């Protein structure tokens, strides 16, 4: 948890959600949204690292991330 003082810009998350959903979010809903986003990132990086390791790559390549993106997004489809 290298959570520095500021883990993420709350206003930005709120604005993203508002723009995409065309709805306001309640005062602290963005925290949960960001929490879910963290879970998404965790899953994405997990899948990407697995895939890159299978491919024998030293570091996570953008290709492995791209390949995994769809699958992970589908997992996070509500």
């Amino acid at each position, binding site marked *: 948890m290298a959570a520095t003082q500021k883990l993420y810009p709350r206003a930005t998350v709120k604005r993203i959600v508002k723009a995409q959903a065309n709805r306001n979010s309640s005062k602290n809903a963005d925290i*949960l949204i960001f929490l879910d986003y963290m879970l998404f*990132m965790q899953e994405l990086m997990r899948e990407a690292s697995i895939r890159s390791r299978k491919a024998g790559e030293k570091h996570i390549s953008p290709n492995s991330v791209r390949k995994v993106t769809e699958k992970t997004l589908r997992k996070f489809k509500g």
Partner: protein
Amino acid sequence: MSDTPNPRSRRSARDSEGSGASTPAGDTTLTRLQRLPIHTRHPSTPSRLAVSATPRSTSRYTPRNRGAAPSTPYGLRAMQRRAANTPGRDRRKSGRGQRETVFDVLRNLSKALAPNSQPIRSSPQPPPEPEPESEIDEIDELDNEPALERPRLSLPLDEVEEDDDEGSPEIRPPRMSLALEDEDMTHTSVEYPRRATFDRDRGRLSMMSYGARLSENFGDATGFEDGSEDGDATGMVLDEDDRQDETIISQNAFDRGGDTEDLGRFNFDFNFPSPVGPAEDLDQDGPLNDDEGFELPPVNLGLNAGPESDYSDDGDATGGFGLELNLPDRVSMSESPGLVGGGLRDEDTVIQGSKQKKLSRHGIPVPNMPAGVVRKLATRFARARSGPKTKISKTTLAAIEQASSWYFEQVSEDLAAYSKHAGRKTIDETDVTALMRRQRHLNNTTTVFSLAQKHLPKELLQDMRLAMPPR
């Protein structure tokens, strides 16, 4: 009628005898014929079964009689008598039994033989003669065949040899066919690369759940393929993008956005196949920057914040354009910044605002998730997963940013749907929890708070607790 076939046949025989069917014992054919009618008679038998209270009429073999016997006292007595006497004695004592046994034997023989014997009888003299002949012929043929086979064995060898000698000509014909196919391929092959790019886009689109875009993309695709190839040559464009990202979040927004909004997301990147040359130079420089960028995420954040607010038209116009042009396809694919903005940016692209203004489907400009935050999260989870020294290159980061932008779009739509369903105008915490529950992140053992405790810093946890008191 649950009786097994054998008892039925016996009964039928008896019945036929009792009815006087026993007359021509000698006619085997008649006996055969009788079988069929007997079976039909069985349904009528129940009357006899009812009468069967008397031991003689009822045969022990049928389970029914046993079941029915106890109902009447006579039946009980009869059962007792039968039990006392061995079944064999009863059969022997009864004259009918003896007669039956004879008939039964004959019938059994006929039954056993009939199926096999009939065909033989029907074609005793005439068919047998031809059959043996045919058999003989077959044998002869078989004899002949082996001889043929031997030469066959030799033939393939010869053919192989011939192939070796003449291998080129024989091989050629198949090639000819292949060549024809190839020609067909050539006709279509021109389109395949386009389709391939489209398919990629489609995958993305599917993720986005926009069906209509595909058709639109086709038209666009033709345009950007050319550019994409050029852009591919310059692998490093990303770095430049990153720079742009810092300055201007939505670089790709430049794309012609004029097309349909949906299409715009992906098309933008592709639409700008234009000049590659300048981009390459930038790209080369890029990699160095990548390393630097790694160390300095906070700086990036600051930069990002700046550009968003500024919507730097000047800087973007100069730097952003060159970069975007260079990066056509791959940039869109791999490098998230363009893609992220993409769908939203279509409208923006017209404006030239590029990164800063990506318009959502609702026409609202969407800020990008700051690259620094994305990188921080990505590195954290990547390191937790695969070692403390894993690094995330800029291209990878771009891909992650794109994924995250898609994620936010998807999640936002879901949340909006939930809140709308609840009749609210704002997205509530309950909507998010419902979403997470549907994502299988929350269940009976995992609560929002446990997840938050795991991932979020205390301050945010505090806020969250205040917002949604534990039930």
